[in-house]
């Protein structure tokens, strides 16, 4: 697939909060149509990377180029090419999904008619056509998550950044989203997928990156990562991030409350 030049190029990215260095030199080339599974323990720097990539954080060292545009120089141009669904994102739930999507679409500078047309189709596709004119405060978590996903793709972005997109979705919806991800990739979209759910990452990603303590410590397809003599991604994860023996820790916990 790596025929074209990278759509995202991150070189020597560093970011510190005060004296604490979160990202210690990240180098990445991501190509169009790739589904990147971005995993790592809590506090490893995952969400910092995402915030930089989506143009939310602007003061970092190193270089981030998206479509040959430097994100430091023109964050707006990049924001408009990215669809972002944050983890546990909230939305203005007194609105109806149609109104919310209208609002978001307009923030992305879309024309009214296009928004109307797309959001109706998308809501239908996600099985929300019954609720199209209901306020979202009556929605379940899964329904809201669907609306958020739609709001992330409504402007037809080149790159889609998803942070734990499956949280709150039931099994059926998970299947839809997984299917959606692979279809989007076929369309040539690049997907940056952050999650703790190893089994899903294992299945949807065609390239997995493991970040730990500010460094990328593994990068490759699931098959390539298997050379770490592990069967599942979960095992690889715990082996590489130094928590190989979870059972010992768990037994410490039990003895503490005994």
């Amino acid at each position, binding site marked *: 697939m790596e025929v074209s030049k990278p759509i995202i190029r991150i070189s020597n990215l560093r970011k510190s909060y005060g004296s604490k260095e979160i990202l210690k030199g990240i180098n990445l080339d991501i190509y169009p149509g790739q589904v990147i599974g971005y995993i790592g323990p809590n506090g490893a720097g995952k969400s910092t990377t995402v915030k930089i990539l989506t143009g939310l954080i602007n003061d970092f060292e190193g270089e981030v180029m998206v479509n040959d545009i430097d994100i430091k120089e023109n*964050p707006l141009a990049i924001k408009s090419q990215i669809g972002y669904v944050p983890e546990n994102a909230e939305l*203005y739930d007194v609105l109806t999904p149609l109104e919310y999507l209208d609002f*978001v679409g*307009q923030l*992305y500078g879309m024309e009214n008619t296009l928004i109307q047309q797309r959001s109706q189709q998308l809501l239908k596709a996600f099985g929300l056509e019954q609720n199209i*004119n209901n306020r979202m*405060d009556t929605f379940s978590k899964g329904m809201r998550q669907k609306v958020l996903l739609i709001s992330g793709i409504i402007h037809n972005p080149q790159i889609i950044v998803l942070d734990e997109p499956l949280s709150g979705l039931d099994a059926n919806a998970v299947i839809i989203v997984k299917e959606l991800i692979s279809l989007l990739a076929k369309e040539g979209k690049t997907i940056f997928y952050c999650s703790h759910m190893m089994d899903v990452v294992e299945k949807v990603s065609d390239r997995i990156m493991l970040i730990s303590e500010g460094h990328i410590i593994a990068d490759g397809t699931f098959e390539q990562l298997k050379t770490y003599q592990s069967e599942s991604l979960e095992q690889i994860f715990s082996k590489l991030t130094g928590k190989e023996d979870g059972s010992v820790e768990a037994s410490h916990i039990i003895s503490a409350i005994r």
Partner: protein
Amino acid sequence: MQKLTLKFILLFSKLWTNMGIDVAQLKIIIETKLIIDDRRPLASFTKNQNKKPSKYSTWFQFFIFLLMGLMFLAFVIVIPDKFLATSLFLTLILSMLSLSLITDFSTILLDNKDQYIILPRPVNDKTVAFSRVLYMLIKISTQLMAMSLPGLIFVFTSWSILAAFTFLIQLILVTLIAVFFVNIFYSLCLRFLSIQKFKDVINYIQIFFSIFIFLGYQIGPRVMQSFTEGQTSVHHIKLLWLSPGTWIASFQALLVQDFSTLTLSFSALSICLLIIAISGSSQLFSKDFNSKIAQLAGGDNPVEKKQQYPEGKVPLYKKIEKIVTNSPLEKAGFSIIWLITARSREFKMQLYPTMAYLPIYFIFLFLQGKNDTFAERIDNVNTSGLYIMIFYLSLFTVLTVFQLITKSEKYKAAWIYYAAPIQQTGELMSGVLKSAFLKYFIPFNLIFLIICVPLFGAHVTNDILLATAVGGIESVLVMLFLVKSYPFSQAAENGKSRVLINLLVLGLLAIVGYLHIVIHQYETIIWAIAIIAWIVFLIMIKYLKKENWKSLAFDDN
């Protein structure tokens, strides 16, 4: 101050334990709540607010309440009859406290975070209920201090020691009664009313109180006059008999050996009241209250309304939006304000009371002056130009709207502004301005036009035009200098008084309105100024669009 109050309350631990309250739990719950209040929320998608919760605003608030306290003091000094003086003083304190408790504290009382944190733990209902009451008591103690301090100092320096101490005790009783009864009121409402109805009731109460206060401003001076002129006493003013403040004040009468039936029954009433307050609130509060609040957490469940607007029909706001806005960004700002202001309970709860002033003022306008015929009164208002004041009062609503639109329970949903490619924040904000202006200001002026032209003649047209333009200019200025964040992107703060800021803004508007009244007879000048003001307003909107709010930038923390 707050810690001291807590310590004082915990002195009576034995009593609380006997009532079935777990004091250790009580202490930790309240302490934690106070800590939480000290730390303002740091949302990862809003601007970093690492500024200390500003000491100045607390002091400012204290100062204003102190001024209010000085006004109350006037009654105590001017009126020789201690019973009457205390009655008025306590009634005033009681109504101010109740007002604050109901308007500024409903968020605390209906806080549903308790739901997830405290209720799953083994804490009994009484402790939860009592912690809520005490928390309110602590939060309101500063206000109480400020309002009663001038009175207390005067009383302690010039009354006898016994009378002064009675006064102090009466003050404490009044506070307790205010807190307990507001609590009982809430729990009764919650028990007998559906959630939706209950929200409405709270709205009405707030509106009622605002009107009450406004009436106070209108009547207060006249009443004061009649007090100082003649030798009145509580026995003559039957209206005061209704106030619990008077009942409690009756202890002062007992001190001077006034054992009339009236005073004795008042004293008995106030003791009953206290018993009802304490036992009632521990009885009532606990049972349904928490489960009801849990339902509140669900937000505004709309009544099952199918299809708010049928397929293909363009809603009204969309039509207006098409006319007044250009870019998609401006449309986004316009529609979000239009829609959310119409639906958010917290927004409406805070806005509607401020609208209540208008009809009241209108009525008072015609009650001025005695014994005139209606036609004479209209003529009076017409020549004095007093009707102009109401145009400026309506401006107050739009200013309140601007204060409120940045705040929301759902402030975390504001992440979208930072993820979206917003080139010109001014575009968005001008949409916001237009929406608020058209929705909350123009309709008033249209109504005034319809009412005033037949009543006073066509010459009011230019006055309304001028007032509208002034309103517009003021809105733009407020937008530029006071609105510092995206719509609905900031967390609302607990128990911060809105009443004060509102009264101040009202005063400012009154000055502008007064200047207008001064020149209102010179029709051509008004026309000229109105036209200039409109031009300035339109230019300012253009300018606003080009503005880029620095304070809106994403600040990672």
